[in-house]
């Protein structure tokens, strides 16, 4: 922070009618965001209404809403949207249930082992997604994978995990949960750790049992953190790309293509940059609506207004 000389002037700074300080304090952040946002936004809006392939500049032409029309007629697009929705719901739910459960368990029942657990659970998030994807791809391999080996040892029939659409999708969900459940765990654990202890002590004195404590005291106090964590996990799950790219590359016959991967396929594989831009905008619009709804829904009854 800039070191300010302490002024002895006890001037009363006349307050402006509108509170500008949040905006001014946010200026550096806004500046950086604008650099990254302005040009790409203009570019992607422009290309979304054109049929634009940078490799074939002679074929550029204005198509208005043509790209969007094409999307809704494209079977692959519609399948992808559905699949991504299912993926997000399942993955976030599992991540959250496991993460929250673990956080409660570790915080209240194993306080002494907590730092070791926290350290161990931090590891999956640290790994470069490419390396992790490759490791899991190998673990799932039908012939050489350890999972099938373990199945054989247990007497279960080995599966070609990545060769079947359903199990491949399950594999993608598993890897995503594997990598990001620790995030939920750590954030909620930090939240639990920074809770004020008086309300809990007071409730205990009043005779509340552990489950009542959880439901009526802890959970509501954690709401702000839970909201943020959920919000970020949902948004991030909608942006999952690395896992699909490395594990299945879209999977057995397009069966694990998630939305960002579809954008990648159209933009970076087929070079249909205009169409990819249109798809991106659809995603952004949808995510904004969803985020707005989520924030409103989850804040009902919470004291803090955004």
């Amino acid at each position, binding site marked *: *922070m*800039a*070191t*300010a*000389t*302490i*002024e*002895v*002037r*006890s*001037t*009363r*700074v006349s307050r402006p009618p509108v509170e*500008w*300080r949040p905006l*001014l*304090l946010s*200026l*550096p952040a806004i500046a950086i965001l604008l650099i990254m946002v302005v040009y790409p936004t203009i570019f992607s809006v422009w290309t979304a209404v054109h049929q634009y392939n*940078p*490799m*074939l500049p002679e*074929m550029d032409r204005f198509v208005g809403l043509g790209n969007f029309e094409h999307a809704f007629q494209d079977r692959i697009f519609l399948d992808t949207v559905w699949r991504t929705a299912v993926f997000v719901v399942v993955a976030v739910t599992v991540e959250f249930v496991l993460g929250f459960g673990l956080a409660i368990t570790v915080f209240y029942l194993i306080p002494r082992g907590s730092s070791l657990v926290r350290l161990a659970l931090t590891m999956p998030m640290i790994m470069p997604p490419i390396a992790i994807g490759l490791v899991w791809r190998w673990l799932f*391999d*039908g*012939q*050489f994978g350890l999972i099938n080996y373990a199945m054989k040892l247990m007497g279960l029939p080995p599966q*070609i995990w*990545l*060769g*079947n*659409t359903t199990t491949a999708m399950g594999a993608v969900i598993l890897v995503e949960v594997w990598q990001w459940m620790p995030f939920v765990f750590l954030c909620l654990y930090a939240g639990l750790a920074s809770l004020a202890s008086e309300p809990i002590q007071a409730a205990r004195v009043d005779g509340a049992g552990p489950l009542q404590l959880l439901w009526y005291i802890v959970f509501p106090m954690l709401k702000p953190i839970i909201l943020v964590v959920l919000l970020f996990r949902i948004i991030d799950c909608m942006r999952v790309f690395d896992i699909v790219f490395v594990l299945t*590359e*879209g*999977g*057995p*016959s*397009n069966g694990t293509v998630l939305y960002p991967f579809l954008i990648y*396929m159209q933009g*970076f*594989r*087929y*070079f249909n*940059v205009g169409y990819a831009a249109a798809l991106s905008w659809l995603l952004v619009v949808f995510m904004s609506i969803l985020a707005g709804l989520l924030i409103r829904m989850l804040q009902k009854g919470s004291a803090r207004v955004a």
Partner: protein
Amino acid sequence: MILVAQFLKTLLSFGAQAEVTYEPMEPTEPSRGKSYRVGKGVSCLVPFLVLGVATWWTSSLRAQEAKQLNMLYVGVEANIDSVRDGAKSYEEKTGVHINIDSYPQTEWRERMFTEIAAKSPHYDIWIIDVPEGALVANHSVNLLDLILNPAVVDSKLLSPETFIPRLIVQSTYDPKHTWNPPMELQMPTYTWQGPVSMETFQKMKADGLGFYGIPFHPNVLVLAYRKDYFDNPDYQARFKTKYGYDLAPPEDWKQFVDVASFFTKSINSNSPTEYGCTLMAKKHESLYCDWRTWLGSYGVFEIGTDMVPSFNSEKGIEATQFYKDLMDKYKVVPQAAKTWTWDEVTTAFGSGLTAMAMNYHRMLLDPAIEQKGGQAGFAMVPGERQADGKITRAPHYGSYYLALNKYATHQQSAYKFIEWLASPDVQRSFAKYQFHSSRRDYYQDPAVLSKWPEYWKPFEESLEIGYSRPRLTVFRQYSETIQAEVSAALLGNKTVKQALDDAACEVIDLFKQAGYYEALHVDPYTKQPQCKH
């Protein structure tokens, strides 16, 4: 700037007193003016400004380096080690430094694409793989201008006669439309049948074609097999008793099934390997390459001269069905192959899981296996035996080629480098890296053949009969459409006929969008009426 000042003022106002007077917590300084505060704020920005200027200055410095050429290359797919070696020798020879950026194929493609999208002059030289050729051709320099310019070309280095003829067509495109069906149907024979000479290039120029790169590092599908097992007299005797002919690398598909069955444990309990062969049947470019090898051997072309798909003909369905049967009916290929590409095939063969495998490079065996006597042998891939006894083989092949960036500036010096790099003597010096040469004389050179002769012979023979892709501006999407449908058939989600028919309709839609039928004034639905909607 006003905003910045406002921002700083807000920050600094936090340092101001609250409305209550109190004793200062730090020794007071005489109050300085507003200009002092703003000055302090600005001085915090100075380091950032300096950094920014330095960055801009150094980047402009980089642009001034003249005695350097930048090359974008792939990695081991096209033998990067040889090229680094060559670049070093070239620098010693001429003093020109070649700066090589190497990436694995997928990443290479993405980098190329972004560079072209920005019309960036940074890279002087590109390596191009054929699938991207149709898209990149119009961004590359037409080398005919340089080759037919006696002041530039060195015909001893270029040495057209030593090229394997089929490779020339790989970088030959019609600039008016860079897309065309397989070369046998469309491209004039002098571009792929040889003999190659300077006349070839003159004819190209006269016909209005463009030559966009010097062929460099071709790849072709070659069969690998466990020589130690095939030479084993015990297995030979047993095979002969069971099938009535000698055990040898299979020449046609029937023999292929026989040999593979013999080496599949579930069929022949005495087999030393679990499976006879493996395929690369994941939804991946590898599947497309495998599939078309099978199709080609049945005499099927994927696309006709009118750019209408013809792969869903009866023979095409038969070929694809046979491919599927190897896994599902004859069971000589592991089911897991449906998730494997050329990477895993190497592992499958190298670890001793299969007795045969097909791939685009010389595969190695696990050293533990080699110690026990394991040996890899190589042969041409099998084909379909015709009525007259001849075998139609169609090993998929492609070639990389060295191309020049149209937007870059040092085109002549870049050309001199690639001409030198692709010259017969220089390519011969790469033999120690197992380099795939584009020159015929390479494969006859005793020095080259002294190492791995068992590989080079079938490799070169396969190159001479290779079956190359159609060239399309929408190649990636085309290939993935086919991959998706064939993969669906392999997984049992559709019948083979249904999958190929669906693929044909999707391909027609794709080509329509790409403008092919419009350009050729062709109605695709006359040949594929079921696709009309």
